């Protein structure tokens, strides 16, 4: 369903699904790590904030992986889009029309997902501890 010579509704939503999973991994990793290390309400005790190097490494790895999968989606969608030799607005009542439409829409969603993944990964560059 996901890797297919024919575009379908699953290939359409693969990239944003990857975004969602990446988002979850980032959030769960960072927040579970901080919750577990700070359950003693450090803010009142004056000790330093735990740093999140481990979580940042996980987020970095997840980001590379997510961008890689989306790149594969993009390559596949590009193939779908070019295969039929149809132009926008992709409204031919044919397999090629459908393929071109789904391919092109998938490319757009891949683009949005890439931006989304990078946006969500950025905090891990700027924030180094649990404050």
């Amino acid at each position: 369903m996901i890797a297919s010579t024919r575009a379908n509704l699953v290939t359409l939503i693969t990239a944003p699904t990857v975004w969602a999973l990446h988002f979850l991994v980032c959030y769960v990793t960072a927040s579970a790590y901080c919750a577990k290390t700070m359950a003693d309400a450090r803010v009142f005790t004056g000790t330093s904030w735990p740093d999140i190097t481990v979580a940042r490494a996980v987020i970095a790895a997840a980001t590379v992986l997510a961008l890689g999968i989306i790149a594969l989606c993009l390559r596949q969608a590009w193939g779908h889009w070019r295969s039929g030799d149809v132009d926008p607005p992709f409204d031919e009542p044919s397999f090629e029309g459908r393929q071109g439409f789904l391919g092109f829409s998938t490319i757009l969603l891949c683009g949005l997902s890439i931006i989304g993944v990078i946006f969500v990964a950025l905090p891990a560059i700027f924030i180094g501890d649990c404050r």
Partner: protein
Amino acid sequence: MSALDAPRAPSQQDDPEHRKAQEDRLEKVWETPGGFRYWSAVNNSDVGIWYTATSLFFFLFAGALGLMIRTQLAVPGNDFLSATFYNQVFTLHGTAMMFLFAVPIFEAVAIVILPQILAARDLPFPRLSAFGYWSFLLGGVFVCGSIFFDAAPDGGWFMYPPLTTDEKQTGIGADVWLLGLSFIEVASIAAAVELIVGTLKCRPPGMRINLMPLYAWYVLVVAAMILFAFPPLIAGDILFELERMFDWPFFDPKRGGDPLLWQHLFWIFGHPEVYIVFLPAIALLAMIVPTFAQRPILGYSWIVLAAVGTGFLSFGLWVHHMFTTGLPSISLAFFSAASEAVAIPTGVQIFVFIATLLAGRVVYSTPMLFALGALGIFVFGGLTGVMVALAPFDWQAHDTYFVVAHLHYTLVGGMVFPLMAGLYYFYPFAMERKLSDRLGKWAFWLMFVGFNVTFLPMHVTGLRGMPRRVFTYAEGLGFETLNMVSTLGAFVFAAGVLVITFDVLRPKSKQPHAERNCWNAGTLEWLSETPGRDWGVRTVPIVTTRYPLWDQPNFVRDYDEGRFYLPDAEEGKRETLITSVLDARPIQCLRVPGNTFMTMGAAFLTGGAFIAATFYAWTLTILFSIAALVSILFWLWRGTAIIPEKKEKDVGLGLKLPLYVSGPDSVGWWAMFITMIGDMSAFASLIFGYFFYWTIHATGFPPSDTAGPGVFWPGLAFALTSASWGAMLLARRANTADKPLSLNLWLVVSALLAVGGGAALLWGPHASGLDPTAHVYPATVWVLAIWTAIHLGVGVIMTLYCLARSAARKLTAEYDIDIHNVALFWHFAMITMAVTAATIALFPLVAR
């Protein structure tokens, strides 16, 4: 283009008398019943209109509450409302606007127009729509009516504990909110199932996925969002009620709970809900803009990008409602980033509309006026949204009138104005007569000016520091003039709404019917005749373009002459076409059920159980629950998986289609699958709760002094349930092999094993003496065990139902819808059991 040529070949449709006879038969089959029986109607055109009217009524009701709020705040130190009554008024204003107007109106409008947009005679489960409507009506009246007894919810529309779990501070109102709305949420999920299956399977032949009207794309996305957004709230409601009724301490920090879990569950629902409200309204614009630009939409794929992209991103925003709860900055930053990212797809839609208008020749009209007003207001609300999505700014603006202004700009601009555009646009389609252009323009300007006068100053009021939800304020803080201006504006806005209400309600029998396709639109819903006919569509057309009324030659004539599919109702049955998901190839002629009071009865009995529970009247609750179950089984028995009198039917144009299909080909299987996705997301929310508690308990979860349910009993439960699931699969295989005896045997075995599995699962926490009121850990274990056991119980009822169907020869090797759907349910029940057992029995072994 053979598909286009086919209808023009000589056929019996050339004979006017033959056509007349067909039309008579169709009219008779689809006739709306008269007199008292009118209320037994289940057809989308009737139920949809009731649904729309009811939710508009709740809009007026909640609007009146809004005016009361503004009256109270007009001057400092006002005593128009008491503090406690003010709490009820603003809570009910938000609650009714969101739960009784904004979301239901999406379902309502979709039920009215979606079948016609897809040229289907009805959606696949009309009785489910009717059930949803009656549930909504009852639940809505119950929730709104509470204010007349001084018993309305008063803890704010998001009901934060610990205020709302404290029974001394909040009375029965909180229970009214939790149970009344849970009941309505179930109806919303039912509507979502109906709309997803309708969009995917009821399109006209030839309407490939790239030709689907944009409205249908939005419906698909929004209905899917409902499946993932509403169940977390239902899960939250369950935890909440367990705390209120039985003192299970989910949100009580003294016993290990955490009020923040409610905030998470509420906003996992609440933020996507904003988009669940916004996208369908934008979908109306996606139909209106091309019509009044008199050209196809520019950037069809970009709209699909926007709809799907927003649908996903909107699930990564929820914590931006919780920026001030003290979560680590890194967590806030993820949500802040996603909140900024969602502006991209949202903006894309706006640009697509503007580009379409620029490229076309715009016909100015009332719907167009509302559409333009919507874009203006929404863009403003979107920009303040970008501001509050930044955590440091939000820390300043949180819980002030700035946020009130922001949310009203997005919701009124993103939803109310487009809806009014839709009302003026679709009114002639639904009610056969046009609304007045003059009144419409008056209404628009009153609403547009009134809205901005009300809410623009609130940004300043908020930045000056006036908090939300205060029933009054002191003199000399700089709030007086701003509040007075807002109040005046609110009444101007209300005057605009009144003008529309008058326009809708004024008698129009002397007014001539609107001409057919009065806006010269290009999509299929405008095929509808005026005066209207009950049949939905004369014939199910073959579609080869996005705007068939503009682009397909002789389309309307061929349609009127019944030259496409299903031009007749020879057998006197209600029928519509089912087609494949991507290419809309015809695959089945679906018999849809007709009018009945059963759905109303089932809805009222189900509602009775919820209402009785509100008053802690347990005997009555149990009686109502049993009656509701019986009525639903009766409904299923009489009205589903009906064996047709013949296998195939000639649907016209030389095409023969089966009347009965089962498994993944059937709409019922899809409905079960989609329902169970929703069920899984509720379950996932409960599991999230378990792991949430694990993260916040540094000393271990389960706590070191508490023994868990152990491994033995959950393990046994897992083994028995696996065996039960296996027996169900063997039963299905036996049925396919046409061995009724072994089918029945395996069904009995499956049911017995499932009973054993459920009992073993519940015995685990019982045997180790877990007291759910002592600490959040036992409470969480019990909730997971009970949830799973209930699923096994439902599975047993389904299994016994199959047994009865088999005994009555309604379930056979050839006619096997029931067993396929029940087996599908069992897959999900098995997953539920496996995850529960792993969580409560195995997880404590590997993590502290």
